[in-house]
């Protein structure tokens, strides 16, 4: 009996061990040496399983920096800053023409960036900034979180409601997205254009459940509100669940306006169905723009420098189309007319 038991245990262990490398190495597939005429690019990125945003970002990099487009690109995906730095040093040794970095940690990069500079490697940062002297990199292409927040607040204030009583659900406190998206609401409040009825957070994991609790607390405390400003789609969904359970109408013909961020396809379908009201893009697709810079350089144009902000859009129930959902959305598409309850 005991022996049998042990055998089962060992089998379980082996099965799990067999699975682990498949998962760990699936993301880091690398191939072939450089061929003549291809532009060598090294990409240091975070792992795709970090978020739906990152999954779309990694895929976008792979699609744009392909052999077909004239690139010999390698991508390293890790959430560990020291591993990222080691990978960047490897790319510099390999003699890449361009080094693209989305850093896990904003500090600790000075030496690598300097050695890239002395080796003549052009460095672009994407999605995330690094705390360093601007002369250490060529340009950074990032989302303008403050602009995203302003877009949302401007949309809201154009809705013609008699008053705006907002439940603000923040993301991870102190993160760039939270600071930028909150700033617009706080500014509008200080200007007297809206009032914040409840100010909560989904915590470090931008948690759907926490967001739901924030709204439930406001409802059971008998607060009057007509706007949910959730700083990502998951938290907006949690907030809407709380409204639905309490029988409070929302969306296009409802009492409470729902604003989400990030352009998840399920969120866009909710907007399309009038279940939510507005969603603001946070684009994970920086590759095409960076590629256009590189191609333009080949024809003699100058590279941009400093911080460059991506152009991002927003949709409401009037402006959303299937095309936008297919082209700009991230994560799985539940299909037309499907709402997440």
């Amino acid at each position, binding site marked *: 009996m005991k022996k049998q038991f042990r055998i089962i245990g060992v089998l379980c262990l082996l099965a799990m061990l067999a699975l682990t490398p498949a998962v760990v190495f699936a993301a880091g597939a690398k191939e072939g040496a450089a061929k003549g005429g291809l532009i060598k690019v090294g990409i240091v990125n975070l792992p795709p399983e970090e978020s739906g945003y990152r999954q779309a970002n990694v895929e976008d990099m792979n699609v744009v920096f392909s052999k077909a487009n004239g690139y010999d690109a390698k991508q390293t995906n890790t959430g560990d800053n020291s591993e990222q730095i080691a990978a960047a040093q490897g790319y510099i040794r390999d003699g890449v023409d361009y080094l693209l970095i989305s850093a896990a940690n904003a500090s600790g990069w000075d030496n690598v960036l300097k050695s890239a500079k002395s080796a003549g490697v052009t460095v672009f940062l994407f999605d995330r900034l690094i705390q360093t002297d601007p002369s250490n990199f060529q340009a950074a292409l990032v989302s303008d979180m403050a602009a995203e927040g302003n877009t949302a607040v401007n949309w809201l204030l154009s809705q013609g409601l008699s008053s705006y009583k907002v439940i603000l659900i923040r993301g991870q406190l102190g993160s760039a997205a939270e600071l930028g998206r909150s700033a617009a609401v706080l500014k509008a409040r200080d200007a007297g254009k809206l009032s914040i009825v409840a100010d909560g957070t989904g915590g*470090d994991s931008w948690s759907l459940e926490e967001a739901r609790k924030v709204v439930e607390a406001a409802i059971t405390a008998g607060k009057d509100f007509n706007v949910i400003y959730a700083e990502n789609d998951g938290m907006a969904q949690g907030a809407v669940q709380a409204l639905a359970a309490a029988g409070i109408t929302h969306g296009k013909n409802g009492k409470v306006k729902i604003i989400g961020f990030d352009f998840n396809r399920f969120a866009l379908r909710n907007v399309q169905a009038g279940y939510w009201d507005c969603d603001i893009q946070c684009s994970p697709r920086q590759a095409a723009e960076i590629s256009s810079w590189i191609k333009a350089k080949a024809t003699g144009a100058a590279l941009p420098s400093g911080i460059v902000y991506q152009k991002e859009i927003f949709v409401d129930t009037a402006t959303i189309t299937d095309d936008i959902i297919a082209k700009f959305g991230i994560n799985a598409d539940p299909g037309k007319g499907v709402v997440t309850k």
Partner: protein
Amino acid sequence: MSIAKAKAQGTQLFLPLSVLAILIVINLIKGADYFSMSVINGALYGNIPNILFGASELVILAIGMTLVSASSRGQDISVGVAGAITSAVFVQVLLNSGNITWLTIGLSFLVSCAVGIAIGAFNGSLVAIFKVQPMVATLILFTAGRSIAFMIDGKLSPVLANDLTSQLGGVIPGVPIQTPIILTVLFIAVVALFIKTTNLKLYAESVGINEKAARLNGIDPAKIKFLTYMILGLCSAVAGFIAVTKAGRHDSVNILKFVEMDAILAVAIGGNALSGGTFSIAGSIIGAYTIEVLSRTLLRLEVGTETIKAFKAAFIIVLMIIASPVVRAYAAKALRWVRSRMHEGIVLDTGALEAAAASNPNAPAKKEE
């Protein structure tokens, strides 16, 4: 002997119950309508249903964590990740099964339970057979598990948007209580029945207290540990099922994130030793609800967003210090001293001490403050 045991059980539950009582009093001071409920969409709505609804996954995980802590003298930190994997399996099996009916939901759930038990068996074999420290053994899945769930999801977070699963995560028409609450109660009942009808509690406790003595008495410690990990795996699967039907969407990154820490905390608040031995599942269940009430109390008191975590941490630290063996032993000693004085009939100069002694038995833990 049995009286002593009942008394021990009573003091063990005293801590979580008194904390819960304090929290409820705070809530009542904030507003007397705390317990008020109304019927919305055919279901009860109010603070209490919200608490029961919100804590369901945590309660289920705390039950499994209690058993594992008792038998293996360590904690499984992979429960949240295990739930993420099993729920990913549930979603994939369900979405690939063609049409979504109660039958296919049931079958997918059973598949996810099997996966949960397999995960438990993996952790259990590391702990029971290879004698790896529980926290180290489960660290493997804790680190790699979300990637596994991500791959199962097909790199996208799939959406479970249909009436049946949203009824499971919300309200079934005609039933006045939210479904996750009912599922949690059912699960607790099954566990209670299992504990009552088997020797598992006795065996797990004896293994946790003294492995060698247990073996000399014919109990196989490896088998018991392995079994408790499999039960915890099953708990993870049930918690994952509830979490994903609640969310309506499988987000491998965030589903059940950091829940393992709350589950361990629930076991500790329940008065259970994290170093194994005797345990009370009732205590852990109350502990889990206490954590939920605590976080909702802070929201109700409108503690600032930036300070809410610090408040939670401070409250828990105070709680754990009061519950610590050192303070408990000191309180017991003080109590004994007071009692012996009373018995000896030594009359001190004033009645002040007697008054203090009279009030003491009611609140032994508070003496230090």
